[in-house]
């Protein structure tokens, strides 16, 4: 009996441990007082201030732009690689299958360093400045692997049979992809889109290294705000970012749940 009690308490403790800080932060963002040990009233003023903060709005715009473009590129490249690895089996593809995991496991500090070092070297020959473009390229570089692995996990034997059936029924190579492959991987594809977007949008360290003045992304800006201290402004922007990615991630999870029921 003791054992079950302990397990139950642990369960509750973990959930409280994880969610309490989040709710606290969100709650505080509505607190009139600047100090978080007193609650003086409900207000939206901090959120309103956010909307007038030009720096934050710029950073937000940059983040969205970078996320959208890098997601687009990652999906195109990643989906292509996934199909390529699914259909071609030789020594080269076996190597790629293993190597594709490296961008997923690489520490963000290491990747940030190597991208910076690379771009600086390139700028000796080409007119490249650290900015939006370099951020997009860097984000795409690690996102491709996530897309490839996520979609790749859904490219099963069953799909292979269906593709053969379609060929047997007169579908040419493009028609097979359009009529059979795409519908089959659609949930995984949608999940990849959302995941790529979230990973790019939330990314801090690499962006910090490869963006330049004027092209700061939101997480990088917020990070510098956080380092300075606990303020209502940070509370509200943090809460917003959290809720935003919460919604997106719930979408991913629901989609992959639907897929597993197939």
């Amino acid at each position, binding site marked *: 009996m003791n054992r079950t009690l302990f397990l139950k308490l642990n369960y509750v403790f973990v959930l409280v441990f994880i969610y309490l800080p989040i709710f606290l932060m969100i709650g505080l963002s509505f607190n009139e007082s600047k100090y978080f040990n007193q609650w003086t009233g409900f207000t939206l003023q901090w959120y309103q201030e956010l909307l007038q903060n030009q720096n934050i709005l710029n950073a937000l715009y940059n983040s969205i732009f970078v996320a959208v473009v890098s997601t687009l590129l990652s999906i195109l490249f990643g989906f292509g690689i996934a199909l390529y690895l699914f259909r071609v089996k030789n020594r080269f593809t076996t190597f790629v299958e293993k190597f594709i995991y490296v961008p997923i496991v690489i520490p963000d500090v290491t990747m940030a360093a190597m991208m910076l070092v690379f771009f600086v070297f390139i700028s000796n020959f080409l007119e490249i400045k650290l900015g939006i473009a370099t951020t997009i390229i860097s984000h795409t570089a690690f996102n491709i692997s996530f897309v490839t692995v996520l979609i790749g996990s859904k490219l099963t034997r069953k799909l292979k*049979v*269906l593709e053969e059936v379609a*060929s047997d*029924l*007169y*579908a*040419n190579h493009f*028609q097979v992809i359009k*009529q*059979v492959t795409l519908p089959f991987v659609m949930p995984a594809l949608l999940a990849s889109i959302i995941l790529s977007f979230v990973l790019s949008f939330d990314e801090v360290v690499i962006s910090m290294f490869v963006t330049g003045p004027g092209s700061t992304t939101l997480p990088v800006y917020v990070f510098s705000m956080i380092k300075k201290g606990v303020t209502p402004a940070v509370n509200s922007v943090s809460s917003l970012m959290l809720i935003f990615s919460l919604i997106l991630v719930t979408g991913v999870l629901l989609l992959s749940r639907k897929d597993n029921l197939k």
Partner: protein
Amino acid sequence: MTYALKFENVSKSFSTTDAIKDISFEVAKGEFFSLLGPSGCGKTTILRIIAGLEHPTSGNVYINEQLINDKEPHLRPVNTVFQSYSLFPHLTVKENIIFGLKIRKYEKKEIESSLEEVISLIDLKDYLNRKPHQLSGGEQQRVAIARALINKPEVLLMDEPLGALDLKLRERLQVEIKSIQESTKITTIYVTHDQTEALAMSDKIAVMSKGEILQVDDPESLYERPTNKFVSNFLGNPNVFKGVIKNDKFISDEFEEIAVTNTKNGPGLIFIRPEIISFGFNKVTSPSMNCVEGVVEHILYRGSWLDVIVSVNNTKIEISKENNFDLSIPDEGEKIYLYWFINKTWVVLDDEK
């Protein structure tokens, strides 16, 4: 044009194995042709080569005298019914069936009339708007057949389509498939490991083992006059004995002499099918029959027939008899005489493989 499909010395090897070696055969137009053999014998490989999903390593494949070795699957006048669960899950039954027509951009009217035609052959009217996961295994396979047939292919391929179904359903669909084939007269290549299925449905059967074709013949010839050891053993459930044939007599450790007809001398095997053996309580002496004495060991009740295991000398012979209720069945332990026609003892000498 004489044949619908022809294989000429076709071999296919994968990196580690040879799937099929030097395969040659012809299929006439409108024929129901089966590839029969155990798992791994290469029958599915042959089917996939016809469909274009694999390409031969060497040799030639012709459909209606056209060489099709490297032609892509979507350019061949061939359609396949795959082994199981090959319906597109995101499409309805109707959309599945008309897939091949829609892909080739047939007009709506043509599609509708072709659909009507196929439905008249295979009744699927009630299912048209359902999705595959709402159908049973048998219903799904019928949809798969309709989906292939609607395209009126030159050659229809079926890869063990009934393997996943239970016995009664299988037997019902065997009849259905056979009657459809007879009325449409489409050349059909049917792959199975089930000999009763092949014997029941086919015009011709190619028995295969380990990548080679051992014998091609109509069912009756194959069953009653097999030309090699494997085929004899594979079809039916014969009693097999090893010994030496000398002067029309078979001699082995178990039997002193068993008469056989018109064979050469030498070591070999004899096959005695259970269903040709009769039994009685008196010895039978006749120039056209063999007779041996034995004791009943087991009687296996199979419902509509009986398998009786009889020990003879120091071996066992199995006989099968229809269960006629007025037939007097011997008891276990009773002495019994087994007799059969000499010319029904099938002999395969060792040098005939």
